């Protein structure tokens, strides 16, 4: 029993890293722009498709393909932001309207991907995808292990970037107080643009890892919207650390639910958690109350 619980915990923690990376871009974008990006999961799937095809066509390892997916999604992010989100941020209904805009963006990319690649289940299969490391009775699937570790590296890099670079300062300042940052000479519009790009690059990077950890298909992103939301709502929206803690916590709980009650119900954990958090502590573990508009 103890072994089984340890086993479940390890699997939960390994996935937690990937969830944390998936949620990091979302929480970053929300922090700076107050945009709840419902299109985030479809961009993760875009990243997964990039890694999938690079592997299928050229045999490029998904982890190596990760920077390529990130760069591509960064470019897509810049274009999408310029086309759609770079407008009346002063409008009081902005936050609410952007949710619907991101919903529209999600529909567009969902339609495109499903039209090109159809809604069949796919998974990238590098050599380590089906392998496992054994320590006594405990096995650690290498796919989850590598994905979790790489995720943590990327998140650490993101943290360092936010902490030690001038752009990072600007992003953090804008997150804390948009108008004060502007008064201090931060080009808020530019910071928003860059942040949106970085957020999507993180989605792309996460997608490359997702491509060999989960099986994916375009329509799957609807399910992930609520999953990712539960992670960042638990941690307090806009907080990077909160998203990471939320991801590990819920991933662990979901792993236990999956173990005791069956895999189908493990996904339900996230949705129910989202409801419960909204009910008892809408501001999450670390956050102030979510800005009300």
């Amino acid at each position, binding site marked *: 029993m103890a072994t089984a619980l340890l086993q479940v915990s390890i699997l939960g923690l390994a996935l937690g890293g990937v969830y944390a990376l998936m949620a990091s871009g979302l929480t970053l974008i929300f922090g700076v722009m107050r945009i709840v990006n419902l299109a985030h999961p479809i961009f993760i799937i875009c990243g997964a498709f990039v890694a999938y095809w690079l592997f299928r066509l050229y045999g490029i390892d998904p982890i190596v393909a990760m920077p390529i997916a990130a760069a591509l999604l960064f470019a897509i992010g810049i274009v999408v932001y310029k086309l759609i989100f770079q407008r009346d941020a002063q409008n009081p209904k902005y936050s*609410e309207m952007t949710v619907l805009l991101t919903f529209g963006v999600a529909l567009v990319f969902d339609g495109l991907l*499903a*039209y090109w690649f*159809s809604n069949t289940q796919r998974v990238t299969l590098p050599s380590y995808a089906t392998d496992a490391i054994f320590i006594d009775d405990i096995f650690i699937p290498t796919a989850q292990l590598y994905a979790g570790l790489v995720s943590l590296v990327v998140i650490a890099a993101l943290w360092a970037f936010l902490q030690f670079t001038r752009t990072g300062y600007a992003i953090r300042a804008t997150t804390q107080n948009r108008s004060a940052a502007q008064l201090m000479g931060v080009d808020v519009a530019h910071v928003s643009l860059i942040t949106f790009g970085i957020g999507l690059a993180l989605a792309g990077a996460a997608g490359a890892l997702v491509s060999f950890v989960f099986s994916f298909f375009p329509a799957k992103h609807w399910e992930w*919207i609520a999953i990712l939301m539960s992670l960042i709502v638990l941690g307090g929206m806009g907080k990077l650390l909160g998203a990471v803690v939320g991801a590990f916590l819920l991933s662990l709980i979901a792993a236990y639910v999956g173990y005791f009650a069956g895999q189908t119900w493990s996904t339900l954990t996230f949705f129910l958690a989202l409801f419960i958090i909204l009910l008892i502590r809408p501001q999450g573990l670390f956050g102030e109350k979510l800005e009300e508009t």
Partner: protein
Amino acid sequence: MSKALDVDSVLTARRDYNTQLARVVGSRKRAVGTVLAILAVLAAFPLVQLSGINFNYPLHMLLLVFMYVTMASSWNILGGYAGYISLGHNVFFGIGGYFSGMIFVFWGISPFLTAPLAGLLASLIGFGVGLITLRVRGPSFIISTIALLMIFRILFDNWQFVGGTGGVTLPLIDLPVEWVKVPYYYAFLAIAVLTVVVSYKIKHSKFGLGLRAISQDEVKAESAGIDTRMYKVIAFAISAFFVGMVGAIWGDYLNYIRPNIFLIILIAANIVLMAILGGKGTVAGPIVGTILLIAFNEAVVAYFGATQLNILGTGVLMLLVLLYFPNGVVGSLARAGNLPRFLDWD
């Protein structure tokens, strides 16, 4: 120098102005005749089946319009008047479909009879869910409605009693092919008319005024003495009622109930888009939006076939409407002062 202000005359002037304002609003001629004529034509339309030519396709398109008019109008009560955007409204559609469908399978009672009960159940569930989710506003509420949809999808996908992902087949209705759509046509028409009338009544009631105050500024509305929470929850429950009713009839119309015909996000997207395209917060807007969007979808299917391009088209249209046409058809016409009288019910 200053003359003492004559309080009485100011008050009288103000009262006169208010009466005059009320009279202007009250005496504005509603084009009731036009609407009744349109309804009469719609009510008589199934008679074309007597001609011997099969008109099932136009009947199907019309009843689809009635169904979506119901859903978009009821969405509008919460989303348009109160400003709480729900992206999971088809949950109640599914609840209605499953409730009446299962009763039909087990006891043979037609969904035509149980539809109001299905609406009531949807309404009750809406009330309960609303008590939880309507505590949060703006983006958090929208997210919670998506989560609600996902929860119900998983529940119904795995609930073997109602057939899981495969769903359940319902008994067939025993009518010749040219008349088989007619009962559904009238049922949807009746529910649609009822919904729009209720929507109109709400808009012109104190309750509706309260909802609009909530959409403008909830804190001020609350400090003005409006029980905002109850207002929102009741609006949510009313809106769920009609969606549940059409869900019941729709399941019977298709002869099967399955999670992926009720609980897909594309339906929610369509409902929202219809209301916004027509003009959210207006009475006639959802009707106009529904007709336009169904025509658009049908054109896309006719030219490109039923592919994933439908999703793409819905998305592109949603972006264009939100960015360049946020007031919708009715809202924009009203602002320009060219709104035809038969669309002016606000």
